[in-house]
């Protein structure tokens, strides 16, 4: 069975940004995403929520180029003022077609 290399982008952000970032992802060309709740601690605590430390973890599988585009987008729009972190790792997927052209 042949697997293809893709990029897994993981974004951790404060809840207020979830909808916005998810929309950004689809607009930028991601074919989908998976999100779930988490809690965390970081250098800043700037969450705008009654309950501090709660945040959202968003994952999306994309091709390498889009991954870079996403990171750049996050950096440009959110890093300055929001509690957001993001990273990329390389993963092997099957039916790569699902995640857009390589």
């Amino acid at each position, binding site marked *: 069975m042949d697997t293809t290399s893709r990029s897994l982008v993981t974004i951790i952000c*404060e809840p*207020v940004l979830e909808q*916005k970032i998810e929309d950004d992802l689809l607009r930028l060309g991601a074919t989908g995403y998976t999100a779930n709740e988490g809690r965390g601690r970081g250098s800043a*605590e*700037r*969450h*705008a*929520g*009654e*309950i*501090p430390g*709660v945040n959202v973890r968003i994952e999306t599988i994309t091709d390498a180029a889009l991954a870079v585009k996403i990171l750049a987008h996050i950096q440009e*729009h959110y890093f*300055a*003022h*929001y509690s957001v972190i993001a990273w990329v790792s390389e993963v092997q997927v099957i039916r790569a077609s699902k995640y857009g052209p390589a």
Partner: protein
Amino acid sequence: MTDILRTNLLNPIVLSFALGVFARLVRSEFTLPKDIYTGISIFLLFGLGLKGGAELAETPMATIAAPLGVTLFLGVLTPITAWAVLRYIGKFSESDAAGVAAHYGSVSAVTFLAAQQFVQAMQVQDPTLPPLEGYMPTLLAALESPGIHVALAIGALRTAHPEQKLGAVLHEVLTARTMILLIGGLIIGYLSGHEQWEKIAPFYDSKGAVFRGALCLFLLEMGVVAGSRLGDLKKVGPFLLAFGVLWPAVHGVIGAWLGVWAGLSPSGATVLGAMAASASYIAAPPAVRLTLPDANPTLYLTSSLAITFPFNILFGITLYFQAALWAAGR
């Protein structure tokens, strides 16, 4: 006044809040599960709306017109005064001033509920007090959003944010949980009327024990949340500390006075005062966060949750009650 204050401080609702703060201070892991917390707030807001709507159905438009007008006026006045004080006396940044102002322009439903409980207790002690107006939840709904928009508009006008989409925020605020439940509840209560309400009242029972009991649990968690913000009190500086206590008091007294002037009973005016004095910590924060990203959340969350909310619960409401009695010449 002192024994009114004692009655208020020895109230299970207030004591539950204190317990929550205490739990946090002793670093207890205790906390109400997030979903339970949300569930209770949904229950309280929806019940509040249903009850208020049923009462509204029996209220002639003429009766409510003036109080409603005064409420909307407060919704415009309070964010502006708060903003002016923070910007020009407190020398806060444009975004911080507008961000904090948005919170004080809106209202805290729990403070409203606590005030409602307070005046009901007062009526037991002094039966000559006219009863609390049943349509108060309508005023609560009316005060929820205008203040947020006024403050955000100020902030938007005086700063330039690439990100800011006021439209999106307007939508966000108007469709927020609080609005859906409160206004939706009001409409449902209004349409289905008093007889239908009676059939579900024991479940929501906003006058009675169920409501009060649920409020205790809710304030327990509010205490935990406020307690977890106490550490930030150092960060916000002396000015905001003073502002968070004094300015609500000013708003509250004005609100109580205007309430009486608009024909509300002393009880109703007290609740209106508490509304004006209270700072939102549910609807306002996300709206401010999205529109004014460079406003510092620590400032507005700490002042509304850890300073103004406790102040109103512990002392403010009693003060506004006195103001209302005085304005009513009792």
